[in-house]
C-alpha cells in the first residue's frame, strides 16, 4: 500500500484566519436548516485551526433548495457536479435542487485551496456526512410534524413520507419554513453504502455546461462594474532586469489615459484594455539586464551544482547488498524541462478597493490565501476584504499564484476606482510559476532471472511526490534534493505546482528505467512488471489495461511501438498502455492509441472521472512531446502558442479509459493521476518502436532523431570484449 503524499500539497504557507463567526454566516444567509462541518483534511493534521471549528456548511432553504457553501473553486475539474451529487444522494434530493456556492470568502468558510486532487477525497466524506445529518434532522422534524415515529419514515426527492402510506408526507421546504436550525456535525453520521447510491456512482452531465455553451458563464474578466478601467503594467524584458530610465511624457499627454506609479509598478489605466496597451507601448524605458543566468540547456548542470542537502524519503534493505545481488546494474540520468500551465484563461482579476473595504474577483485556486495577501498589501482587516471566485478558465496549479489580483488591488486603491488586470499571453508565460526543470539519477539492478534487487533513486528539484517505490525491490532508497516550490535562488524564475507536481518527472524516470531493465532481462515489459510487483491495486490496473489494450507478450524492442507506464498519485493507481508511430526521418512521434486503467476507490461520477482521465492523457501529450520553456539570460523566449506548442486536435490518439472497480476503498483523487504516466509510456513506446531510448522530456523530433542515430551507431560498433 502506498502511503499518501501530504507534504507537498500546499505552498507551506500557513495563513492566519479571519475571525469568521457563525452568527455572521447565519445573518448573511437567512433561515433554514444549516449543518456546519469540518473537513478533516491534511491541513488539520498540520495543526491548523478552523474558525469556529467548521469550514463548510450546507443549508436547506425555505424553498427546499439545498445549498453547499464551499471554499473550493471550479476550474473545469468538475467538482461543481460531483460534490453536488454526493450531497443530493445523502439527502435524497434531485441533483438539480442542489446549488453550489464556491470560492467566495464572505459566504464560504475557510478552505486552503483547490489543488492536489483533494476535493473528493477530503471534502467529500464530511460533505456526505453533513448531508446524512441533515437528512436525520429532517426526519426528526417530520416525525413531529406528521406525528409518525422516525423509524416509519422514509425520504425521497426532497420529501419525508410514511413508509406504509406515502400520502402522509411533508417536503423539506415545508419543514425548513420559518425555522433557523443549526447543527454541528460532531460524530460520524451513517452514510449510504455503495449499494444504496442513487446519484453517486452514476454519470451526470456537468451542471455548469449550459452556462458555458451560451457564453453566460462568468469568468473573472467578464465582471463589469460602473466606472471600471483596465490596467496594463510595464513589464521587464527579463527576470532580474532593473529599471534604468523611464520617460512617460508621451503617455501623460494622452486623453483618457491615467498613469499610475507605485514603487516598482508603472501602469496605465484606460476604459478600454486595448487602448491601455497602446498607451503603455508609448512609454520609453531602458533596462539593465541581469548577468547571464542558466539557460534551457545549461539548467541541468546548474541544478546538480545547486543541490546540496537531500532527505531520505524512503529506505528499505541495504543498497550495497542489492548491488552484490544484481547480475546487471543500470545507471541512468533523466532530464525534464520547465513547462508552463498555459491555461487558455490568463491570470485575471477585477479589484474594487474602497475606503474601508475591498472586493476582488479573481481567477484563483486559492481565494482564502489571496484574501490574506490582499489584506496585508492593502493594510485592511481580512474580514474587510472579499474575494469572489467566478468560474476559473483552467488552473492546473498555476492559479495558486495570485500576483495579478494583488496588482489589480494596488492599482484600484491608487486610482480610486475598480481596476481589471488581465495578463496578456506574454505576461502569462513570463510570470507563470512553471513546473520546475529536474534531474533524476537512478542506479538499479536485476538478477539474471529478471528479479529487481536494487533501486537507488535520486531526484533533484522535481520533488518527492510519486517517488515512492511500489515495485517490490528488496534493497532500495529514495533521496530527494530540493522540491518543486523553488526558492533558495535555484531556479531563474518562480516555480510551483503543475498538475500532479513531481510525479510526472518521477514516473517518467521510474517507468523508463523499468523497461530498460525488462529489455536487458529479455522479458516482456508487462511480464517483467508483474514479476516485480506485489501491490494488488497496481496489479489490478495493469491487468485491466492489458485486457483492454489486447496486450500480447513480446520481448522489447518489438518494433510494434507499444509502451507501458504505471504510477500512483493522490491515492489513485494508474496503468497506461500506448501505441506510437515514429517517423524516423523527421523524428516525429505520433501517439495512435492510449488505454488507461485507473483504480480510484469508489467513483462518484464515472463519466466525470473518465473526462479527467482523457484530459490528463491529452494534456500529457504536451509535456511528453513538445512543451519546454525556452529561456536565456532571464528572458523567457516563449511568449505565445506559436513557439510553445500545446496539444491540438490532430495529436489526439484513440483514447480508451477503464475504471477498475474498488468499492471497498474510499474515493481517491481524479484530476491528476492519469497525466503522470504520459512521459514514461510514450518514451517506452518510442523505444519499443525504434530501439532508441530517450532520457529527456519533451521528446522533440530533434531529440528523437538524435536518439535513433545514437542507438544505430551503438549497434554498428563492434561489441566490447
Amino acid at each position, binding site marked *: 500500500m502506498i502511503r499518501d503524499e501530504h507534504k507537498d500539497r500546499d505552498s507551506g504557507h500557513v495563513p492566519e484566519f479571519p475571525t469568521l463567526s457563525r452568527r455572521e454566516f447565519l445573518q448573511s444567509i437567512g433561515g433554514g436548516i444549516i449543518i456546519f462541518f469540518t473537513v478533516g483534511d491534511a491541513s488539520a493534521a498540520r495543526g491548523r485551526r478552523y474558525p469556529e471549528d467548521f469550514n463548510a456548511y450546507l443549508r436547506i432553504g425555505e424553498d427546499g433548495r439545498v445549498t453547499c457553501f464551499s471554499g473550493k473553486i471550479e*476550474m473545469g475539474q468538475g467538482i461543481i457536479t460531483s460534490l453536488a451529487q454526493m450531497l443530493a444522494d445523502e439527502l435524497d434530493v434531485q441533483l438539480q435542487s442542489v446549488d453550489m456556492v464556491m470560492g467566495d470568502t464572505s459566504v464560504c468558510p475557510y478552505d486552503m485551496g483547490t489543488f492536489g486532487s483533494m476535493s473528493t477525497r477530503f471534502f467529500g466524506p464530511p460533505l456526505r456526512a453533513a448531508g446524512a445529518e441533515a437528512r436525520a434532522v429532517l426526519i426528526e422534524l417530520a416525525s413531529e410534524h406528521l406525528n409518525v415515529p422516525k423509524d416509519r419514515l422514509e425520504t425521497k426527492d426532497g420529501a419525508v413520507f410514511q413508509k406504509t402510506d406515502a400520502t402522509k408526507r411533508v417536503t423539506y421546504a415545508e419543514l425548513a419554513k420559518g425555522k433557523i436550525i443549526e447543527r454541528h456535525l460532531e460524530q460520524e453520521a451513517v452514510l449510504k453504502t455503495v449499494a444504496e447510491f442513487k446519484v453517486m456512482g452514476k454519470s451526470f452531465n456537468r451542471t455548469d*455546461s*449550459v452556462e458555458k455553451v451560451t457564453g453566460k458563464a462568468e469568468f473573472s474578466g467578464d465582471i463589469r462594474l460602473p466606472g471600471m478601467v*483596465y490596467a496594463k503594467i510595464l513589464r521587464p524584458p527579463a527576470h532580474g532586469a532593473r529599471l534604468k530610465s523611464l520617460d512617460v511624457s508621451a503617455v501623460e499627454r494622452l486623453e483618457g489615459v491615467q498613469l499610475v506609479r507605485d514603487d516598482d509598478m508603472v501602469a496605465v489605466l484606460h476604459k478600454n484594455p486595448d487602448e491601455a496597451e497602446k498607451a503603455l507601448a508609448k512609454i520609453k524605458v531602458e533596462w539593465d539586464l541581469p548577468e547571464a543566468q542558466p539557460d534551457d540547456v545549461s539548467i541541468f548542470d546548474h541544478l546538480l551544482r545547486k543541490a546540496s542537502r537531500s532527505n531520505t524519503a524512503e529506505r528499505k534493505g541495504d543498497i550495497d547488498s542489492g548491488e552484490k545481488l544484481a547480475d546487471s546494474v543500470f545507471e541512468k540520468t533523466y532530464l525534464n524541462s520547465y513547462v508552463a500551465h498555459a491555461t*487558455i484563461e490568463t491570470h485575471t482579476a477585477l479589484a474594487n478597493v474602497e475606503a474601508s473595504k475591498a472586493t476582488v474577483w479573481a481567477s484563483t485556486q486559492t481565494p482564502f490565501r489571496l484574501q490574506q495577501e490582499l489584506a496585508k498589501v492593502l493594510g485592511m482587516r481580512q474580514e474587510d476584504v472579499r474575494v469572489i471566485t467566478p468560474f476559473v478558465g483552467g488552473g492546473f496549479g498555476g492559479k495558486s499564484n495570485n500576483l495579478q489580483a494583488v496588482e489589480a488591488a494596488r492599482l484600484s486603491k491608487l486610482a480610486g476606482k475598480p481596476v481589471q488586470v488581465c495578463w496578456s499571453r506574454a505576461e502569462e508565460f513570463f510570470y507563470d510559476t512553471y513546473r520546475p526543470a529536474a534531474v533524476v539519477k537512478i542506479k538499479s539492478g536485476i538478477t539474471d532471472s529478471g528479479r529487481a534487487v536494487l533501486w537507488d533513486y535520486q531526484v533533484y528539484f522535481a520533488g518527492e511526490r510519486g517517488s515512492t517505490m511500489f515495485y517490490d525491490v528488496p534493497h532500495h532508497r529514495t533521496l530527494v534534493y530540493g522540491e518543486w516550490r523553488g526558492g533558495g535562488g535555484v531556479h531563474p524564475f518562480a516555480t510551483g505546482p503543475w498538475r500532479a507536481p513531481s510525479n510526472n518527472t518521477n514516473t517518467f524516470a521510474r517507468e523508463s528505467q523499468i523497461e530498460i531493465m525488462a529489455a536487458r532481462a529479455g522479458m516482456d515489459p508487462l511480464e517483467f512488471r508483474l514479476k516485480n510487483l506485489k501491490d494488488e491495486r497496481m496489479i489490478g490496473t495493469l491487468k485491466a489495461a492489458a485486457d483492454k489494450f489486447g496486450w500480447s507478450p513480446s520481448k522489447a524492442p518489438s518494433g510494434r511501438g507499444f509502451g507501458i507506464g504505471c504510477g500512483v498519485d493522490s491515492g489513485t493507481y494508474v496503468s497506461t498502455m500506448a501505441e506510437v508511430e515514429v517517423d524516423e526521418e523527421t523524428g516525429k512521434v505520433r501517439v495512435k492509441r492510449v488505454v488507461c486503467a485507473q483504480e480510484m476507490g469508489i467513483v462518484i461520477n464515472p*463519466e466525470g472521472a473518465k473526462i479527467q482521465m482523457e484530459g490528463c492523457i491529452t494534456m500529457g501529450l504536451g509535456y511528453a512531446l513538445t512543451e519546454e520553456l525556452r529561456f536565456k539570460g532571464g528572458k523567457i523566449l516563449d511568449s505565445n502558442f506559436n513557439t510553445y506548442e500545446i496539444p491540438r486536435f490532430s495529436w489526439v490518439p484513440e483514447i480508451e479509459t477503464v475504471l477498475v472497480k474498488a468499492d471497498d476503498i474510499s474515493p481517491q483523487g481524479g484530476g491528476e493521476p492519469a497525466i503522470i504516466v504520459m512521459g514514461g509510456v510514450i518514451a517506452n513506446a518510442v523505444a519499443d518502436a525504434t530501439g532508441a531510448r530517450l532520457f529527456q522530456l519533451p521528446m522533440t523530433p530533434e531529440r528523437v532523431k538524435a536518439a535513433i542515430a545514437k542507438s544505430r551507431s551503438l549497434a554498428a560498433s563492434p561489441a566490447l570484449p
Partner: protein
Amino acid sequence: MMANVSFTLNGKPVSLDIDPDRMLLWALRTDLGLTGTKYGCGQGQCGACTVLVDDRAVRSCVLPVRSVEGKKVVTIEGLSDNGKLHPLQEAFVEHDALQCGFCTPGMILTAYSLLLRNPRPTREEIVRGMDRNLCRCGSHSRIIQAIESAARIMKGGT
C-alpha cells in the same frame, strides 16, 4: 481617428463611434458588453475569440472593427434561438465536451462555420477544421464527438 462603423450583431443593427483600427474582440467585450467572446492569446493563435462574420469563423482579436462594416456578426450569445440551444450547444452539453469552458464559445462557433460549409464532415475533416482552436483541459475527443453528433441531428441545416 474615430469613425462610425455599422454592422449587424446577433441579428440586431449596431452603430459604433469607434477607432476603426481597434480589434473587434475589445469592441465586443467592452463597448458592447458581450463577454462570451474570450481573450486567450491576442494573436489569433488559440481561437478563444472566434466569432462569425457573414457565417465564417474569424478571430476577433486580430480583426479590426472596420472590416465588419455592413456585415453580419454572430457571437456565442447570438447562437441560441429565443433560449433554445442550437444543436451544437446541445451536443456539447450532452457529450460533456467542455471542462473549464473558456475555449468553448470559440470551439462552438468554429464548428458552426465548419458544418455550414461541410454539413457531413468526416472525422478527419473535423480534426482539420478544429485544429487551430486550442483547449488546455483536454476535451478534444468529446468535442469531436459532439460535432459529429450535432452534424447528424442538423442533417445539413443550421
